[in-house]
């Protein structure tokens, strides 16, 4: 078979696994939260129900071309992010298309979906969408700064911007993981990770508890379904990225599930413990201590 | 020696007249004193072997200038008169 075709098929397989994993996590995590709070909670397959419901709605409305394309951008961004990353270390099958670009491509490609989504949401003309975008973008710029410093610190440490190489360098036991070899960078990145996941205390962007304020305000039916698919894929892609950079990657799917789940739980725990930040607070917060840690990480790796 | 004494006397006269010309409140007297300085100076020129300069100074520096001053002064006075 044509090697390209094989690659595409394996990529689709990856996508399928990740999608299901993402959807399940979406259901399981609230379920755990509910059980801890001694409530019954939603069924773990709730996310599947939502998607099916959205796709089977008969009323479908659109505000215009950008409104229509926005979710496409969003989902392309999520899938693309996954596609440009090696998922399972050492497995030829699950390298996806990571040979076409390095860490930088991944870092910048995150914004592809964000920007497209923001544009789509903006066309709806709903002020709440715009407010959500404003909040989201503001917060993103803030946590990206320590994140980048951390990533740069890793790049300095490993003298490469190639994700596979970074993962390779961490093999051989957890003492080789970046989180152990470069704790400062890891700290900066993991703090930034909280912002990237968009959970409490940084969830004012979507404001899930209130009447919907945030980019997807106007979306419904199939369009919302696309967004939900992305909401399943995109966080997992990010988790995989952090896993690759900080926790030595994964050599098999179970390892991947375990590591990503634990990383995910880190943001969940923080979210449970801390109250929500307002955007101006979170911006200042990210540009405070986390930024200093990031700078320190750079200095330490460069000079010591 | 006598020339020197004369020169000194002339000089003192000139200084005195200059001071009058500058400080006296009566403008007519002042103009006359200034003319006087010129006149005395022309005598000094004679002593300094410059007769032609002396002549010129006496006629122009002393005479003509004083006349012009009075002419202008008159015009100003007339003007003042008309105004009043």
């Amino acid at each position: 078979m044509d090697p390209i075709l094989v690659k595409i098929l394996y990529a689709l397989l990856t996508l399928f696994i990740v999608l299901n994993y993402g959807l399940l996590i979406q259901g399981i995590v609230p379920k755990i939260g509910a059980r801890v709070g001694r409530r019954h909670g939603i069924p773990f397959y709730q996310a599947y129900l939502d998607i099916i419901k959205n796709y089977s709605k008969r009323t479908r409305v659109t505000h215009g071309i950008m409104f229509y394309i926005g979710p496409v951008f969003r989902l392309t961004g999520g899938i693309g992010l996954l596609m440009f990353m090696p998922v399972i270390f050492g497995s030829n099958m699950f390298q996806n298309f990571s040979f076409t670009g390095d860490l930088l491509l991944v870092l910048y490609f995150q914004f592809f979906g964000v920007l497209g989504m923001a544009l789509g949401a903006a066309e709806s003309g709903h002020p709440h969408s715009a407010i959500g975008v404003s909040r989201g973008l503001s917060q993103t710029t803030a946590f990206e700064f320590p994140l980048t410093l951390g990533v740069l610190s890793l790049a300095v440490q490993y003298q490469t911007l190639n994700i596979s190489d970074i993962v390779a360098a961490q093999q051989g036991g957890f003492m080789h993981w970046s989180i152990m070899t470069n704790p400062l960078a890891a700290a900066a990145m993991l703090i930034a990770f909280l912002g990237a996941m968009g959970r409490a205390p940084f969830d004012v962007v979507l404001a899930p508890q209130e009447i919907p304020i945030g980019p997807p305000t106007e979306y419904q039916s199939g369009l919302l379904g696309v967004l939900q698919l992305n909401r399943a894929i995109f966080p997992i892609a990010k988790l995989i990225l952090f896993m690759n950079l900080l926790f030595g990657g994964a050599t098999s799917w179970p390892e991947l599930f375990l590591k990503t789940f634990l990383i995910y739980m880190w943001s969940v725990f923080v979210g449970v413990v801390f109250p929500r930040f307002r955007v101006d607070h979170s911006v200042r917060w990210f540009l405070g201590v986390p930024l200093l840690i990031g700078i320190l990480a750079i200095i330490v790796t460069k000079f010591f | 020696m006598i020339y020197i004494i004369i020169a000194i006397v002339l000089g003192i006269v000139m200084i005195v007249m200059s001071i009058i010309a500058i400080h006296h409140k009566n403008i007519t007297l002042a103009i006359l004193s200034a003319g006087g300085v010129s006149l005395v100076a022309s005598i000094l020129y004679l002593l300094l072997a410059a007769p032609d300069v002396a002549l010129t100074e006496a006629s122009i520096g002393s005479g003509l200038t004083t006349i012009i001053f009075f002419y202008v002064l008159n015009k100003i006075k007339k003007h003042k008169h008309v105004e009043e």
Partner: protein
Amino acid sequence: MEKIGIEQISLAFGFIILMLGLWGILSRKNIIKIVLSFTLFDTGLNIIIVAIGYLKNKTAPILDSAELQTDTASKIVDPLPQALVLTSIVIGLGVTSLLLVYALKLYKEKKSLFINDYKDLKW
């Protein structure tokens, strides 16, 4: 020390008159007085020039007598400064009269000869 001659004395008086004139120019507030001080200033200047041109025991640079016709240059005083003074006196007259014309015109404008009144242009 050289013996003091008439030219040194004249020079000194010339300077004194010059300075008095300058004093008048700088201190008087009446425009006519200022112009008057200018004539004094000029007179002092002229005295200085003539005194500089004067060399002792020489006669005037007018070649009328026969004895002066020979070896002229060593017997007469330097004629040049005297010529200069003549010119200077005439120019002085011109300047003085023009100053007076200005004084008159100024008076016509503001009915005042007080120089401090003419500060329309400044800064």
